[in-house]
């Protein structure tokens, strides 16, 4: 009798565990931009991605966002300055439906970075991630520092020179 009860308990536990195993990938996220998003610091680039409901039922309340990491420091990057659109919220994705995602990001600092798109569905403990996109941000060459220096230094000097002449002329007139 005890053996039967133990067998039934084991079977019941395995039945309960099954939905967790089949629930692992209801969403598929794919970055549509080129695998390499190279650019120069200061550039604005658009990251496009797609999210697909792979199940046969609609999925509600899906939040998608970017996760950016610095490849050199191995630290996540704060997107405060990089992107105005931090997260994109989708109310419902119908069964089998594919929706486009788009983020505009501003390359702030030169370096090597890795980017993934993360999708979280309400009630699902496991987030879905895209494949990693690696890109390199080149340092920005200044616009025309060679031209600004003569003006930045020259204008106050020219004004000072004019001021000295005016004062000298006034003093000689008075004398």
């Amino acid at each position: 009798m005890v053996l039967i009860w133990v067998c039934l308990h084991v079977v019941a536990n395995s039945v309960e565990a099954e939905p967790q195993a089949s629930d692992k990938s209801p969403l598929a996220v794919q970055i549509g931009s080129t695998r390499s998003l190279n650019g120069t610091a200061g550039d604005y680039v658009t990251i496009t991605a797609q999210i697909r409901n792979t199940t046969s039922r609609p999925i509600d309340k899906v939040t998608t966002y970017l996760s950016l990491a610095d490849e050199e420091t191995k630290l996540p990057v704060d997107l405060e300055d990089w992107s105005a659109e931090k997260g994109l919220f989708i109310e419902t994705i119908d069964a089998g439906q594919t929706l486009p995602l788009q983020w505009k990001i501003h390359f702030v600092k030169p370096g090597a970075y890795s980017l993934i798109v993360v999708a979280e569905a309400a009630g699902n403990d496991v987030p879905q991630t895209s494949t990693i996109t690696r890109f390199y941000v080149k340092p920005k060459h200044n616009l025309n520092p060679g031209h600004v220096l003569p003006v930045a230094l020259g204008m106050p000097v020219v004004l000072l020179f004019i001021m000295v002449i005016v004062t000298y002329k006034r003093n000689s007139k008075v004398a």
Partner: protein
Amino acid sequence: MFRYIWIKEMKGELFTWKSTLWLIISSLLLSFTSYSFLTNKELCLLDQTEMLWLLGEIIVGTGLLIVAIDASSTVTGELENETVESLFLSPMTLCDFVLGKFLACLTLWGFIFIVSVPYMLVTSAGSRLGSAFISYVFLLGTLVVIGFILLVFTLSFLYRSSKNTLTTSLIILMALAVPAVFSSTLKNNPFGWLLSKVNPVDNAFSALDNVLVDGQTALSQNWPFLLPLLIFCLLMLAFMAYSVRCFSSEGIIRNE
């Protein structure tokens, strides 16, 4: 007759090294700003159009500040030093006096603009916005400066005290300039929107944004910003006419 007042004021402004020091300090401010914009690691990440917009705001802001301070003492100085009585003994009308002082203050803005032209040229190099940048800074700066000089003159004739006029003018300038640099999200509510529509400094800065960042360089595309500026100037002219009328009815020496 107003020419004599204008030339006298200009001579007073430019014939001593102390009185032209502000022009050199303005030039140093523009030198530091434009050099930082083009060479600083963080600042040079700005789009060139945004850089021009910020520089335009600094030029107009500096012009407004200097003109407000100068205009605060130009009329009241004559009243406080009691030199206005000898001026009115000459065949000169109150209109000549006001016009001469007004042109002298406006000339200061002209000097600031001339000094800022090389900076505008060097920062706008390669953007194809150079001529639009210089023209609109001149147009918008002149309109907002005219309105502000008239406002300060109104206060001068009402207060007859340079200290009170200067304090009130600077507070009004701050009250107009601070909301003008708020982000657009703060202007989304009805009060913020209304404030930005009637604020002349905000209209000048928004017009610069429209021209430089959004590329709307035609005059017809900037009427929504230019019209409130023109109304501000006309309103200030009416206020000044009223204060001059009060001044002439009360007489030079007010019985208090």
